């Protein structure tokens, strides 16, 4: 479904991704873990086409479509969704208005008519309930005055409405208490299906207790250095990331001697 091959990318002339490979099949949940500065958030931004992130080499395709050729909004309409680590506020633009525009943009790309306001309101109310947000959040400005947890739940609500093919959750667990964490996890789990895949970016094991990954990858210095099943997450939790440094040092020494 989503295929990332040998991806090299830089921000402000600094190379962050250095040959990232990731192959995600329909219905799979992949967790990406790794130390700070490994390039986890960068991966999400590069794949979703954020301005300022330059791809130097490599390929990213979604169901065979070359994503790197598309604008950010076209990638979104192709079914790629990024749940932000720090969702930004858009004052005065109601959640409802914002999400209807988003859903309609996607429908238009699929050659469908805009959804009627009445039908959309119904869908949006259901989505609100599912992430335990009061329905009056639909009337409020996008993320305007929301708490950290409310913002994260709002992201999941947007995901529920857009029904993307691939979801990248960028540290959706950061700053959440255990209740909010469960709500986020429930939202994600409810959307797991044979034709939808997830990339869950996280620092900690605890989110993965609620969202069971099929695969866990360790991202370090811009590439995947280790992959395994869910048990790898537990291993990392126990050992930390210090071993990565040693491995890197060894790698560097080998390169020098060669």
């Amino acid at each position, binding site marked *: 479904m989503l295929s990332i091959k040998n991806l090299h990318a830089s921000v402000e002339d600094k190379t962050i991704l250095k040959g990232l490979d990731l192959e995600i099949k329909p219905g799979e949940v992949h967790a990406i873990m790794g130390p700070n500065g490994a390039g986890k958030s960068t991966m999400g931004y590069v794949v979703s086409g954020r301005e300022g992130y330059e791809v130097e080499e490599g390929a990213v395709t979604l169901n065979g479509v070359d994503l790197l050729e598309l604008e950010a*909004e076209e990638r979104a309409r192709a079914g790629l969704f990024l749940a932000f680590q720090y969702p930004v506020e*858009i004052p*005065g633009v109601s959640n409802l208005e914002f999400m209807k525009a988003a859903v309609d943009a996607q429908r238009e790309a699929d050659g469908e008519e805009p959804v009627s306001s009445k039908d959309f309101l119904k869908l949006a109310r259901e989505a609100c309930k599912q992430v335990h947000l009061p329905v009056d959040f639909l009337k409020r400005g*996008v993320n305007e005055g929301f708490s950290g947890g409310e913002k994260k739940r709002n992201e999941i609500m947007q995901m529920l409405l857009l029904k993307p093919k691939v979801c990248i959750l960028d540290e959706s667990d950061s700053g959440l208490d255990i209740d909010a964490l469960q709500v986020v996890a429930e939202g994600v789990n409810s959307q797991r299906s044979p034709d939808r895949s997830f990339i869950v970016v996280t620092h900690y094991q605890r989110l993965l207790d609620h969202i069971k990954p099929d695969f866990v990858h360790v991202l370090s210095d811009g590439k995947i250095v280790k992959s395994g099943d869910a048990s790898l997450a537990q291993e990392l939790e126990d050992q930390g990331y210090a071993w990565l440094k040693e491995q890197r040092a060894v790698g560097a020494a080998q390169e020098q001697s060669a």
Partner: protein
Amino acid sequence: MTEEINQALKREYEAGFVSDIQSDTFEPGLNEDVIRRISAIKNEPEWMLEWRLQAFRIWQEMEEPEWAHVSYPKIDFQEISYYSAPKSMADKPKSLDEVDPELLATYDKLGIPLVEQQMLAGVAVDAVFDSVSVVTTFREKLAEAGVIFCPISEAVHEYPELVKKYLGTVVPQRDNYYAALNSAVFTDGSFVYIPKGTRCPMELSTYFRINEQNTGQFERTLIVADEGSHVSYLEGCTAPQRDENQLHAAVVELVALDDAEIKYSTVQNWYPGDEEGKGGIYNFVTKRGVCHTSAKISWTQVETGSAVTWKYPSCILRGDNSIGEFYSVALTRGMQQADTGTKMIHLGKNTRSTIISKGISAGHSNNSYRGLVRMGPRAEGARNFTQCDSLLIGDQCGAHTFPYVESKNASAIVEHEATTSKVSDDQMFLCQQRGLDPEKAVSMIVNGFCKEVFKELPMEFAVEAGKLLEISLEGSVG
């Protein structure tokens, strides 16, 4: 990202067409003879001519103001034509059937059908084309309620007592340079009178169109709301796309007698000039209202056009417990310059005023808020709340705030809040990641920023204003 936003901001000015209409236009130039000719064409009574000439003499002794935060080449007032009217209007058409179809087509094209059946239900329109009023709709229906809505040139004949009583009482001839000029040469505009205790049954609106080249438009509007009455009025303006600058110097006077309420909304979309700043309208306008006891005047403006805007719709809160409001959205882009704001003059006790100003600057434009809140010595318990928000798009534009506060009464309270923000890359990316293209994203963010003001507009026009901003921002015709 800035580049993309700037691209999104480039746009066609869709009201920029020229109508092929035969006009009688004065030779450029300004002297007492020109004023006598204007007065003669309008068949004015002697008192009106005298008033004009008096204003002209005052104007000649005045100097063009230079304090505003705008710059433009000096205007040569002898190069402007002070009167232009479609030939077909020479013998006043009695009904819509007699109006030149080309004129009607012009308004149709602007989205203002003048045939009553096709109009927005509940909105009466006075259409002013260059120097004359072309048609005023729904007059009979309004007359049933006792409401007078007609061109001011007609009011001078039909209701001389009302005109004499109120003209120049809010904006005197010598008020300022452009007001004096307007008093001398004004050609048309609307006159409204709402009788005691009457709620005007329809929205009233005037639509101003400049068509002829090298002419100035000097309209004068006078609205009198008698005791306990209520009226909502809207004006719209457009002009063709031309390389030369054109002058528009209007005066609007509002009189709200005891317990009356006037809501005055403006959607200003004069031609702003091209990307390099060539052409466009100089919009130098004086608008002011006086509130008697417990009266209320509310100004709402959406300013998106004009090369240079110089405009401060104001309220004189003369009566105790009167209320003044000013809600403004001013959008500048390209090379546009706007210096706009309000004056709230609190004279009476317990007077209240609210100012909400939203300035949006893009491109190489400059956008200034200039506002005065004055609490007079008698203004016991008076209150003002001011909020000025600026939104910057890109890094080549300027936003400025010049608030003036004068308080001569210790019990008066003045509050001022100001913010400046940018359309951030984070906001743009969030929108794009949810599938919205950059143009839609900018217009949505800007509309959100303006929400507090848009909700003050009459419903039909709030939609219009939103669309206008969208058009301004999208660069598309639609």
